[in-house]
């Protein structure tokens, strides 16, 4: 039903081509084998429209050119992260003013050799991690299924993006903060899980993890934070090491009086359901959930992603 191809010559501009130039959509839509070729309308210089089989071959060639094995059929639930849209706009030289407003800069270092950017959401059913007993900082594990990355694609870097939301103003906390500005600081630690849960976490104790990146943040702004997780992702893909996921914890810099681990965790949106933080609806969670972004090169062409075509 979608075997409808037409590269429109300039002379017709972007206007829809007259119906006669295209295969009329069959009434029954039987979806059977190749249809007989239909000739071009008399008086035109168009070639006869190619057969169904030829179109399938045509599409297969194009898909191969795009590095795809078959035509993607995205589900309705698929969500395009705004970061990917921003990267696209930046890459294609889109609305520069709008991008400046966003304060978005292309991660030059990450993309010096990359021509492909892929984004991944984690498998939510695997995110719980047993923690040590007591009021310890909350830790979550993110498992990202990277099996869709083609074997011949070399990932050069990867970033984990976490959204942190400004906490609502609290007069008492604000006064306290004014006297000790570092009071409200939180540290976000991102680890690679080196052993699966169970092997290294006896009785919910310590996990075998390795620190990948860390950052001290203040909860007075809403923004995305990017953490470099390249060593882990490169080990999983190029190195063939097992992927046990990433672990994230948010801890207050100073032992809290009114705020606590719960408040820290509320500030950073690391899970759909947070302690005393409410549960986001699906649409909001899709926009704010953690995102793994990989930068890779598929071995085709040489020009990196950072080379933007000048505006004509």
């Amino acid at each position, binding site marked *: 039903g979608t075997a409808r191809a037409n590269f429109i010559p300039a002379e017709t501009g972007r206007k829809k081509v007259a119906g006669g130039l295209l295969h009329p959509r069959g009434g029954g839509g039987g979806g059977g084998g190749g249809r007989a070729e239909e000739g071009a309308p008399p008086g035109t210089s168009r070639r006869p429209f190619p057969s169904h089989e030829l179109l399938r071959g045509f599409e297969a060639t194009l898909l191969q050119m*795009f590095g795809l094995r078959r035509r993607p059929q995205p589900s309705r639930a698929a969500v395009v992260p705004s970061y990917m849209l921003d990267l696209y706009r930046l890459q294609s030289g889109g609305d520069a003013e709008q991008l400046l407003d966003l304060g978005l800069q292309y991660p030059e270092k990450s993309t010096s050799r990359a021509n492909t*950017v892929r984004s991944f959401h984690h498998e939510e059913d695997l995110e719980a991690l047993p923690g040590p007993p007591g009021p310890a900082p909350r830790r979550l594990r993110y498992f990202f299924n990277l099996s869709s990355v083609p074997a011949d694609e070399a990932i050069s870097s990867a970033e984990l993006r976490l959204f942190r939301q400004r906490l609502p103003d609290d007069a008492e906390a604000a006064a306290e903060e004014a006297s000790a500005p570092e009071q409200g600081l939180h540290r976000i630690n991102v680890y690679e899980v080196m052993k699966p849960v169970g092997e290294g976490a006896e009785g919910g104790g310590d996990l075998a993890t390795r620190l990948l990146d860390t950052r001290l943040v203040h909860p007075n702004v809403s923004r995305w934070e990017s953490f470099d997780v390249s060593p882990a992702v490169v080990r999983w893909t190029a190195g063939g090491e097992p992927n046990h996921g990433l672990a994230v914890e948010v801890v207050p810099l100073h032992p809290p009086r009114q705020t606590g681990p719960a408040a820290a965790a509320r500030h950073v949106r690391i899970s759909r359901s947070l302690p005393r933080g409410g549960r986001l609806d699906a649409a909001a969670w899709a926009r704010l959930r953690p995102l793994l972004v990989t930068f890779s090169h598929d071995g085709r062409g040489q020009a990196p992603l950072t080379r933007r075509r000048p505006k004509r």
Partner: protein
Amino acid sequence: SPKHHDHGGGGAHPRPRKSKKNCRRHALYVDFSDVGWNDWIVAPPGYQAYYCQGDCPFPLADHLNSTNHAIVQTLVNSVNATIPKACCVPTELSAISMLYLDEYDKVVLKNYQEMVVEGCGCR
């Protein structure tokens, strides 16, 4: 170049049509919705690919962006028609970026080389 208007003055000669047929770039818009791909290609909706078409006449002018070999071939063609003229082909191409959903519902931003004709020439 602007169109020539003959006001009947008698003095002006109509501009020769030949230059219109010379090798140059023509617009060619590829609309992804026309191949039914707009369900998985997020952006762009289509793009200007352009194509090259036109004659490579003897003698080859500078703006026809020819090579030494093309000049020789055209020269030979002018005395021996069995040798073809140089061909009008893309001489400079650029890339486009595409944002799409792959077979696994993952969002991919990819840069594809040599998708847009930037310049044509006789080769």
